[in-house]
């Protein structure tokens, strides 16, 4: 098949979007499921093509395909090229995005059924998928940025999907504004790069960075700018506040955008531009530290949330922190080694991306599980759930698999990728390593808190206004994607058991399967992390299922912490009250006012009085008659021309 077919991966969802929004929405009743079928068909095509791309990339010499570019516009001889960049990173991302997207769309057929905005939902989902695919394929930072913003737009639209709910509309705005903050950084980075190098082609930038043509402070700032964008999208501290609120959107949206794809776009972006980062130790360190800190920081908040989706959302932030840490740590490791080649720089992304790969599956699974639970109970509040294990066996089983994977239990997917990050962190950032080890414990605890609160014990009634007092299993169309994702959550990690993933990304040696599968335990680290995770699970069991320990007691005991976590470190308040109200309005502006009033005014008043007196006389000239001004301008021109001729 010709490489041009790869374009189709992007265009299939675009076409689906166009068909739905142009024809289906105006023409077809909202009850019809046509839109869903169209989207799913398009995504099937995408998935097939993505897998084909992956296979082709695997088979090609440098794990890279040469797809010809198209010149879009030429300004001053500088061509803006439209092109796609297909290397191993892209191929992996394509598969992730299209798989999760497909699963989510299938799931949505059940979840969104009967919603009046059904067609709108699918139109935007298609658009989102298209933009995301475009983002991962873009060969130029300019187009990456365009798709980046389109992804953000879709996220905004989809979070605010139920725009009649004020909370959803607010959350959408919040997400949009907060991520824009990061995007300013991204844009600044792009502009800085363009100004310095005159190109935005990623491959060229890589080349320039590796050869040292692009280095020093410029590179650092550009990299940090890009990272700021990534941090905004990936909800890294301190721009993480939007993601939990974004759970106001439909759950499949959360699963697709806020767990598997869009938030991972930040990680992807850093991975994509990693050759830039590895040439700046400051930037790399920033990535690592922010990532590591975010991991534990978000996990701590996840401990106490009662809303099932918010727990998973914080978990997502935490896991994204892991990925950032993985990228940062690997990059730092590379820097410590000294010699940096392009291949090595690209390969350094493998660890982070592998976690992204696994995380996408199990986190989407968890979200879909949460959605399924919501479907049954009509609420997201875990305190109103319980005992769903019996009535929703499939949901329970898949959710449990997802949880185990998230907690990093051998041999599920999460274990493998997390373990590599831990190893990498241990080698490069011992301090962060300690933090993330704690996070491992926390992760296991909070996710199993969810599992036990939701599925164990007795049913606590569900939503007060629930239509149905008896929760039931979700329909097949919702369960099937969850099962598929559960299988992937189990097996996805096996790719790198043998080191093949790393090799595919360009680094490391491969080993035998058995050797990798069991040989991992020759190190001490897996043991420790498993023990920590196990103890977290145990503690959760003790508190929320067996009730050996009363959670309330613990809560009271750690009251300050509990409050701190529960109020999310007062971050929302911080932004609202401290930054906006206090710092800006009271502090900065008030300070200016004082300086202005006492210092400047005093000096100025004298001058001003003179000026006022002068102005009073002169202002007669300003009649507000535009024509008079024009006349004077005309006189001016005449005078100037005369002067020029006189002088010349």
């Amino acid at each position, binding site marked *: 098949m010709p490489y041009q077919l790869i374009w189709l991966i992007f265009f299939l969802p675009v076409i689906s979007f166009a068909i739905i929004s142009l024809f289906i929405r105006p023409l077809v009743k909202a009850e019809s499921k046509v839109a869903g079928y169209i989207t799913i068909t398009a995504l099937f095509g995408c998935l097939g093509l993505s897998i084909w791309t992956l296979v082709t990339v695997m088979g090609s010499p440098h794990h890279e395909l040469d797809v010809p570019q198209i010149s879009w516009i030429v300004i001053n001889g500088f061509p803006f090229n439209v092109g796609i960049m297909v290397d191993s990173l892209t191929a992996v991302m394509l598969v992730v995005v299209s798989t999760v997207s497909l699963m989510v769309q299938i799931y949505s057929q059940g979840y969104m059924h009967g919603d009046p905005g059904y067609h709108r939902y699918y139109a935007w989902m298609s658009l989102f998928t298209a933009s995301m695919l475009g983002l991962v394929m873009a060969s130029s930072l300019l187009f990456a940025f365009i798709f980046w913003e389109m992804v953000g737009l879709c996220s905004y639209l989809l979070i605010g999907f139920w725009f009649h709910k004020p909370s959803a509309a607010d959350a959408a705005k919040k997400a949009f504004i907060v991520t824009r903050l990061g995007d300013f950084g991204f844009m600044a980075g792009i502009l800085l790069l363009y100004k310095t190098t005159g190109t935005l082609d990623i491959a060229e930038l890589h080349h320039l960075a590796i050869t040292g043509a692009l280095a020093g402070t410029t590179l650092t700032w550009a990299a940090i700018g890009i990272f700021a964008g990534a941090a905004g999208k990936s909800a890294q501290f301190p721009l993480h506040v939007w993601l939990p609120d974004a759970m106001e959107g439909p759950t499949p949206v959360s699963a697709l955008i806020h767990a598997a794809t869009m938030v991972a776009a930040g990680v992807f972006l850093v991975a994509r531009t990693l050759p830039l980062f590895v040439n700046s130790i400051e930037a790399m360190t920033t990535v690592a530290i922010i990532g590591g800190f975010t991991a534990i920081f978000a996990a701590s908040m996840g401990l106490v949330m009662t809303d099932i989706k918010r727990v998973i959302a914080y978990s997502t932030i935490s896991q994204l922190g892991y990925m950032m840490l993985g990228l940062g740590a690997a990059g730092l490791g590379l820097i410590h080694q000294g010699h940096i080649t392009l291949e090595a720089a690209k390969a350094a992304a493998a660890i982070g991306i592998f976690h992204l790969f696994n995380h996408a599956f199990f986190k989407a699974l968890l979200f879909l599980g949460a959605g399924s639970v919501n479907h049954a109970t009509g609420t997201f509040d875990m305190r109103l759930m319980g005992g769903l294990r019996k009535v929703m066996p499939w949901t329970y089983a898949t959710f449990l698999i997802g949880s185990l994977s998230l907690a990093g239990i051998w041999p599920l997917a999460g274990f493998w990728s997390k373990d590599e990050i831990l190893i990498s962190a241990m080698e490069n950032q011992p301090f962060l390593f300690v933090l993330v080890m704690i996070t491992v414990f926390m992760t296991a605890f909070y996710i199993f808190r969810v599992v036990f609160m939701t599925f164990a014990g007795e049913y606590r009634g569900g939503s007060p206004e629930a239509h149905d007092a008896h929760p039931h299993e979700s329909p097949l169309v919702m369960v099937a994607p969850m099962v598929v994702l559960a299988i992937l959550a189990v097996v996805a990690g096996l790719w790198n058991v043998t080191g093949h993933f790393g090799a595919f990304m360009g680094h490391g040696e491969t080993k035998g399967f058995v050797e990798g599968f069991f040989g991992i335990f020759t190190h001490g680290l897996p043991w420790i992390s498993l023990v920590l995770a196990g103890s977290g699970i145990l503690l959760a069991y003790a508190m929320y299922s067996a009730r050996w320990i009363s959670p309330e007691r613990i809560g009271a005991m750690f009251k300050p912490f509990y409050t701190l976590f529960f109020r999310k470190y007062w971050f929302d308040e911080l932004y609202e009250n401290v930054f906006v109200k206090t710092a800006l309005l009271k502090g900065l502006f008030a300070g200016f006012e004082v300086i202005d009033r006492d210092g400047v005014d005093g000096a100025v008043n004298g001058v001003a009085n003179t000026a006022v007196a002068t102005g009073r006389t002169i*202002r007669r000239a*300003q*009649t*507000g*008659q*535009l*024509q008079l001004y*024009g*006349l004077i301008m*005309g006189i001016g021109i005449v005078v100037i021309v005369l002067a020029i001729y006189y002088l010349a």
Partner: protein
Amino acid sequence: MSIALEHYLILATVLFSIGLYGALAKRSAIVILMSIELMLNAVNIAMIAFSRYIVPLMLTGQVFAIFIIVVAAAEAAVGLAITMAIYRRRETIDTTEINLMKW
């Protein structure tokens, strides 16, 4: 006497000057807009004349004239819309009575 570049330029200048006078000396906003169109036309003549006599094969002047026409169209649309808006609000389009920008 055959026609040379100067002829066109002088013609353009005359038209421009008439437009200038109209734009400065008229009360009606619509007449002022018409005068501005005159000035733009004068510029176009000059452009095309330059193009014809100085770089006949490049057609640069014609290209610019096209852009000027675009600008003129936009200007007419927005200008007349503003005039209409003012007229609706203040029942007049006499520029001497419209002096909100005073002081």
